[in-house]
């Protein structure tokens, strides 16, 4: 169950503060990195929302993001709509797609849910890959950034764009935390914990899960709009399943089910990738080793582990900490 603890608030402020400072005082490329981190972090929050709290480990979040980006671009570039309505429609498309996926896959769980979402994601990927009208695998360009001059903001300025990205990340975090604290979010955690009991208490869990996926789709859609605005170019590459795999990696690396962990995971992964690729072409291996070590160290992720340590430090008999064996047993049943 989600609680916006002080520790989480502090971690979030530190993470966002770091991004803002890094963008403000860093070089041009630092700003690019900050935007990349924001996009990945938003996507990771979106995935943590449904995977960490709803137990729906989706492998189609890349596709959801891509659909938002594509619809946004089709409306703006191909049909000449103004950017705000295009973005709204893009978000709507993402919400509808992920809600639909959530609805039809509601009966599956564990690896079956993962595979089902993979299937839907890959179908969307193939659709855009094969659409000659949309440039196929070459993708589409010609996107322009939002005109926020009425706010005195020039989005073509890398710093402004990066800071705005951080702002949107904060907003998405707030949306996710409000949703998770609401009655809806509480019940979502209940479904994750024990779906059949939740049904026995009168909750239509299929509908609930579909709605949760739709909410998650909204957040992933936000990432898609920023991604399109950032690169001013989109390609089916956005939708491919490995993108979703990377997001999952970020969520786990940071700490699944903590909401702020994924933000930290995104910072770590992108920074590590850029630093490592300067030195070696074999950085995948290092990422792999880090991933293995992270799981061997307890699987709580970087932030998750810190949270456990700090909670133990401040309240020696913290009642919130779940017991290890029961949890893993429960998860095992989840998959079987």
């Amino acid at each position, binding site marked *: 169950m989600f609680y916006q603890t002080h520790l989480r608030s502090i971690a979030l402020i530190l993470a966002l503060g770091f991004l803002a400072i890094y963008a403000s005082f860093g070089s041009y490329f630092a700003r690019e990195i900050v935007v990349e981190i924001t996009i990945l972090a938003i996507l990771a929050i979106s995935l943590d929302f449904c995977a960490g709290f709803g137990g729906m480990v989706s492998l189609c979040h890349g596709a959801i993001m891509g659909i938002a980006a594509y619809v946004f671009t089709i409306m703006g570039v191909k049909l000449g709509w103004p950017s705000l309505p295009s973005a709204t429609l893009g978000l709507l498309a993402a919400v509808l797609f992920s809600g639909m996926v959530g609805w039809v896959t509601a009966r599956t769980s564990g690896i079956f849910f993962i595979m089902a979402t993979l299937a839907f994601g890959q179908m969307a990927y193939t659709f855009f890959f094969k659409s000659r009208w949309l440039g196929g695998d070459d993708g589409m360009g010609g996107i322009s950034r939002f005109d926020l001059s009425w706010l005195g903001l020039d989005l073509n300025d890398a710093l402004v764009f990066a800071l705005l990205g951080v702002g949107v990340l904060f907003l998405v975090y707030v949306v996710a935390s409000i949703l998770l604290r609401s009655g809806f979010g509480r019940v979502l955690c209940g479904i994750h914990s024990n779906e059949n*009991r939740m049904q026995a208490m009168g909750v239509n869990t299929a509908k609930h899960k579909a709605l949760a996926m739709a909410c998650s789709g909204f957040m992933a859609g936000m990432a898609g709009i920023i991604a399109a605005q950032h690169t001013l170019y989109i390609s089916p590459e956005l939708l491919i399943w490995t993108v979703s795999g990377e997001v999952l990696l970020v969520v786990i690396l940071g700490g699944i089910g903590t909401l702020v962990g994924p933000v930290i995971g995104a910072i770590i992964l992108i920074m590590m990738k850029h630093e490592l690729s300067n030195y070696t072409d074999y950085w995948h291996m290092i990422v792999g080793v880090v991933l293995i070590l992270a799981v061997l160290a307890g699987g709580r992720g970087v932030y998750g582990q810190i949270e456990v340590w700090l909670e133990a430090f401040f309240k020696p008999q913290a009642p919130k900490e*779940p017991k290890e064996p029961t949890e893993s047993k*429960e998860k095992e049943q989840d998959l079987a």
Partner: protein
Amino acid sequence: MLKVDQLSKDFGGLQVIRDLSFQVADGERRVILGPNGAGKTTLFHLLTGVKQASSGNISYAGTDISAMDAVGRASIGIARSYQKNNLFENLTIRENLMLAASAATGKSNWFIRDASLHADVKTRIEETAEMVALSDQLDMMVNAISYGNRRQLEVGLALATKPSLLLMDEPTSGVGPAMIDRFHHLLDSLPRDITILIIEHDMDLAFSIADRITVLNFGEKVFEGTPAETRGNATVRQIYLGEAK
């Protein structure tokens, strides 16, 4: 009033419930007796809609609910507790009760407000905790409390939805005599506007709380009557009580 009419259920070739008919009046305490494999738990599955009957009808409060699914039946006030603990293991007792309360009061559709802060939900959590004697452990994780306390919470989860019809599947299974007394007390204290069906193996408890008793054997109703009548019935003695002694 709960009305079960000609209910049958078969799995493959096996008839688990056959031609079962009975009625339970509002506010009644009805104990279901029967040896293992008599179809008691299956009857509960059929009543709560987890499984669909092969034939026959169930009606509750004047409406036919035979075709209604589990979620629908829960939302018209039918709640159950389970024979094997079926709790939210990695959450606290408070959170468990809160989920039940929010589910039953439609707070699951609140997208912004925190249901656990709502006065309605809060009082219900406290009231229920009081009823099942868990008030002093509200913030304990379920996987850290004793087995007996989990049995209490099992009933608490059902009660927190404020049901009008409560099905309890062996609430005292696996607990010691002291705990059975507690359950006795709990059952006595439940308000009379709740109709209760209870599967119970502890004879003393069963006979002292029941208004009427229905005895099942091999999926069939073999007897129905008051505790006193049941005690005196030869068939029941033979197939059930005899066996128990």
